[in-house]
């Protein structure tokens, strides 16, 4: 390899492969653009669900809700994960990225796919929500876009694994993989497995929409869709947990307490969590109770064990690191003296709490057979996943961005004062959004509904003032969360445009 293709990072000492760096930059910037788009749509969502405001009309609410789901859960998260995969392989291992051209193939396929899907939604050809349950039908190009996107993501995972092989054979590291890379590998394994499974769902659906084959049974679709749709959320969990360990190291120099325990927990994710997907089907016909309880009970709880292990091990390694710095008075001096003003650290802490307590616990509770009867498809569900995938994953990714900007983009973070506040504003507002959604859902307010009072329907439905209040709180907190998200986008863009260059 020409050494001209590498630079050495002055702060971390990593040898950075320039093509890998460019790919990380491109994927991360694209992710942030989707976050911006999705965030603007999120504003439209909360301001419509807050019935006193009722901003959008019904048609555009449903259309943009479909786009919000795709832009956020699919595009923002997965583009960012591609950046994480390239970082955890090429950068962390000081290796060259295997086949940068394949990295660009990943990028072009994902971008093209996302654009195709988004355009179909905006044209009004795909008012089906991201779940696209048959027999609701979108234009076949919508499904094609999703398929291209998934193929792109699989290519990215292959580049990741090829880079691990390159690093091993070229001897850029000694011994076992670092934990962050190990966790990313778990994410990539789950990604390849689940995205290929996604093909089993989307290719026949695409052919059906194109008029080539008959429709899949509606319940079979739901089973296959969630077999992929739920399991693929474990990509996010693994990527997020890896980012947590990475943030622990970057912010306070934390060192995993016991490598064996942390790694075994990642392996548990691969082995077990894929099999909890039937908690989406608990009130469905077509599966026996024994089948449902087995799927959502035994296997899910071993994966929960993995999360419980990380939930101990991450705060634990931070405590150890801070005590080593001399904060040893009493039980909690380390916590008081933790770098709360460092946005990487506060994002880590808020993400950990939001994911674990608000998201994790509600997930386990709503996923039981009987409780699901009173949770299925009401606002409790978006309340749950805005805690996991927004307050958890999204916030963790925001936190790591504050390190990626100087390390990979070689710019000092612009507006450091704003950056200090950003995780608090976004994270705490998102907690409130989640909890108020769960609260309103407790009264039976439906998810994905433009109007809860039965307008245009035969009967009127009244929820009472307490629900109006919950939705108002959700609305206000949602606006604050959008401001927090906008702060993040502004800081990132300003850093790229006007941030002080760091010379290496």
């Amino acid at each position, binding site marked *: 390899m020409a050494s001209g293709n590498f630079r050495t990072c002055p702060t971390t000492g990593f040898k950075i492969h320039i093509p890998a760096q460019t790919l990380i930059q491109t994927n991360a910037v694209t992710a942030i653009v989707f976050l911006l788009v999705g965030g603007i749509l999120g504003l439209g969502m909360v301001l419509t669900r807050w019935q006193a405001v009722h901003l959008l009309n019904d048609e555009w609410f449903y259309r943009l809700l479909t786009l919000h789901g795709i832009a956020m859960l699919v595009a923002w998260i997965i583009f960012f994960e591609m950046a994480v995969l390239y970082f955890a392989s090429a950068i962390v291992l000081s290796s060259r990225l295997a086949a940068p051209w394949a990295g660009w193939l990943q990028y072009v396929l994902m971008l093209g796919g996302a654009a195709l899907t988004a355009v179909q939604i905006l044209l009004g050809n795909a*008012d089906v929500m991201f779940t696209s349950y048959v027999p*609701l039908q979108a234009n076949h190009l919508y499904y094609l876009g999703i398929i291209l996107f998934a193929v792109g993501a699989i290519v990215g995972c292959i580049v990741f694994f090829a880079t691990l092989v390159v690093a091993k054979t070229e001897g850029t590291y000694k011994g076992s993989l670092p934990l962050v890379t190990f966790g990313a590998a778990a994410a990539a394994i789950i990604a390849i497995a689940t995205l290929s499974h996604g093909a089993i769902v989307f290719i026949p659906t695409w052919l059906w929409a194109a008029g080539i084959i008959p429709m899949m049974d509606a319940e079979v679709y739901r089973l296959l869709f969630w077999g992929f749709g739920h399991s693929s959320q474990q990509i996010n969990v693994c990527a997020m947990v890896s980012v947590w360990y990475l943030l622990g190291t970057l912010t306070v120099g934390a060192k995993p307490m016991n490598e064996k325990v942390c790694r075994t927990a990642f392996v548990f994710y691969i082995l077990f969590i894929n099999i909890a997907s039937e908690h989406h089907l*608990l009130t*469905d016909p077509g599966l*026996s109770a024994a089948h*449902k309880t087995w799927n959502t009970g035994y296997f899910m709880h071993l994966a929960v064990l993995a999360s419980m292990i990380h939930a*101990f091990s991450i705060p634990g390694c931070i405590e150890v690191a801070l005590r080593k710095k001399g904060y040893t008075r009493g039980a909690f001096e380390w916590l008081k003296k933790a770098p709360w003003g460092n946005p990487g650290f506060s994002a880590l802490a808020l993400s950990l709490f939001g994911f674990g307590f608000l998201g994790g616990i509600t997930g386990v509770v709503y996923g039981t057979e009987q409780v699901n009867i009173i949770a299925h498809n009401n606002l409790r569900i978006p309340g749950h996943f805005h805690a996991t995938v927004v307050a958890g994953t999204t916030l963790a990714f925001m936190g790591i961005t504050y390190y990626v900007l100087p390390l990979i983009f070689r710019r000092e973070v612009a507006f450091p004062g704003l950056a200090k506040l950003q995780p608090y504003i976004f994270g705490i507002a998102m907690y409130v959004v989640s909890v108020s959604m769960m609260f309103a859902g407790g*009264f039976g307010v*439906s998810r994905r509904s433009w109007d809860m009072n039965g307008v245009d329907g035969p009967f009127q439905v009244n929820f009472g003032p307490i629900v109006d209040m919950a939705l108002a709180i959700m609305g206000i907190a949602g606006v604050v969360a959008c401001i927090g998200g906008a702060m993040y986008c502004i800081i990132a863009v300003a850093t790229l445009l006007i941030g002080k260059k760091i010379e290496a």
Partner: protein
Amino acid sequence: MSVTSPQPGWWNTPLHKEEKIWITIAFVWCILITLAMPAWHLFGTQNAASEYYKISTEDFGFLTDAFIEKYTVGEDSGVPVVAPPAGADIFLRGQQWGWDPVLKLKQGSTYRLHLSSVDVNHSMSLLPMNMNFKAVPGWDNVLTITPTSSGSFNLICNEFCGIGHHSMNGKIIVDS
């Protein structure tokens, strides 16, 4: 560091006492909630449905129409009201965008409710109880129900079923 390779021999590093205690607690808890799932099903009285049949949407529509014809007692906001006898097989049809018929039931009597859809996925949400069950085209979701309180209850749809989704509602009346 999580970004450097672990020390050789990391696999044999013993666990700290606190870690052992935590993992034990977590493991025991996971086993307990795992056992709680079947236990709750066996000893609880309110379970998700596990009786279901495949049925074509035409047949389900046909059965619902026959059911409505047999037991209609009136009309409410354009939706037929039916009063089936206790113990009967009763039908609730999800359709873009409404639940029909309006069911008039007796408190304390038991019914076999057949829930399905004749077009896309819907989901029946009974308010204010907030109980939710899926109506999937091609599948008869059979719920054995016994109303325990009387009054008029709203049904809404909480699965997205097209642009009129929010307008899809219905009613169950329970006489004491």
